[in-house]
């Protein structure tokens, strides 16, 4: 397993769970799953592999998650910029559907191409784009009131 893959998987579960303990547990599971799949098929695209392993782990563990009760700390090893407001994301993580949440993390945070996401999930690219459109609308409406000034400053 490469460093970038480990990092991507860890970040995926950080954003998906917003819970240190669960994120680390799921990451360990997904990394093992990813390594196993890679052993079976070494030709497989690493982005597709990340999507597949994170999705299968999410499906097993998301039921245990109580969304809307974040439990994260920098002590666990996440490096969060001090000026970054995670409020909109917490709200989004709580209210968004599973498809929307995962699509945004894969595509916008981990920068996995839509084609690879579609291949990993076995769906069409159009479906991925549709989910992303809806997800960004939701995320935008949550980020709108909270951090418009900060976003403008970034612009």
């Amino acid at each position, binding site marked *: *397993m490469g*460093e970038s893959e*480990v*990092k991507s*998987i*860890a*970040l995926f579960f*950080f*954003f998906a769970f917003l819970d240190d303990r669960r994120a*680390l547990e799921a*990451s*360990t*599971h997904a*990394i*093992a799953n990813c390594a196993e799949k890679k052993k079976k098929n070494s030709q497989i695209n690493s982005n597709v592999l990340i999507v597949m392993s994170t999705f299968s782990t999410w499906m*097993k563990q998301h039921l245990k998650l109580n969304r809307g009760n974040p439990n994260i700390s920098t002590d*666990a*090893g*996440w*490096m*969060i*910029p001090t000026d*970054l407001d995670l409020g*909109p*994301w917490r709200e989004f993580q709580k209210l968004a559907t599973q498809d929307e949440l995962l699509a*945004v993390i894969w595509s*916008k*945070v981990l*920068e996995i191409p839509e084609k690879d996401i579609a291949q990993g999930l076995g769906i069409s690219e159009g479906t991925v*784009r*549709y989910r*992303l*459109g809806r*997800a*960004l*609308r*939701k*995320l*935008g*409406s949550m*980020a*709108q009131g909270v*951090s*418009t000034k900060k*976003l403008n400053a*970034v*612009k």
Partner: protein
Amino acid sequence: MSEDVNRFALSKKGQRQVTPFTGNELLYDYMSGILDAERKAAVEAHLESSRDAQLDFQKIQIGQQYAERLRQITVSHALQERLGAPSSYLAVLFRKAKFDQWPVGLKWGLEALVVVFVVVTVLTVAPWEKVMNLKLSTGSSDVVLSEVNKSQAQKQVAQEAPETAETPQFVDEGIKAKEAAPVATAVAAAAKTQPAPTPVAAKATPTPAPVQKAPAKVAAATTAASEENESEDQSTESGKASTGYLYRGQIAVTNLEAVGPKIKDKIVELGGRKAGEVELGWQKTPGSAYFHFTIPEAKYTELQAFLSEYGKAKISKDKHPRVMPDGIIRLIITVDEAQK
């Protein structure tokens, strides 16, 4: 391309229009820049005419920008290394066995089985006999303080030696004078403080033990202990295999002054004989009497029944190097005054 265009329904002016619903759904594609020129123009026209579409587009833009900002969050190198490290054997085993998918009842059952196994192993392996003996031996250790005059003791020993030779009650119970020497001083000292005679102690020459040199002479004068030491030495020297047994017990009674003689009489009645140097029912301390004796094995049950009338007797059968003749058993019973 012209064939593709012909497939779409065109307006009267030959323009490819989009409905508000489609226009809104195409906003993300429009922002991503993947629409063809004609579609792009149609969506732009829709954006100009629809306020809702404008607001939606703004939300998508803000969402996109916010998501891009989230990329600033990274994972520390330490965490990456921790996650990338190979899993332990146990973790791999659990994963392969799909332990997390097992029914809860099965998991609990397995855990209970492991706990039971550990408990049973501990109970089986632990040396309980030693532990119990340790507890008993610490409970009955009494020390009598006395002052010993070395020169007087030597004279006394010289005078009394010929008179006090005691005939052994059994073949293996003979007490050798030489072997008794190390403990004789202590026994003699104890005898001075107690009314009970200690004849064997007198026949040995006292050795200059470090204890006697101390300003306040302290002699561990538990006669019983010295007897046992003697007997153990004897049997060790004679090279016999240690297959004998000693019944050691304790009983707490009310009114020891009255009960002590009764027990003594009963022992005598049952054919018991004193086995050590002190008389039966020797007053070890004001609240404790000491019975070291032998009785026929057949009478043991009767003795137990008799003792149980006065209190709960705790008698244990311990291995001892001294071998008794067939049908005879040796007992050391301490009768204590019950605490109120």
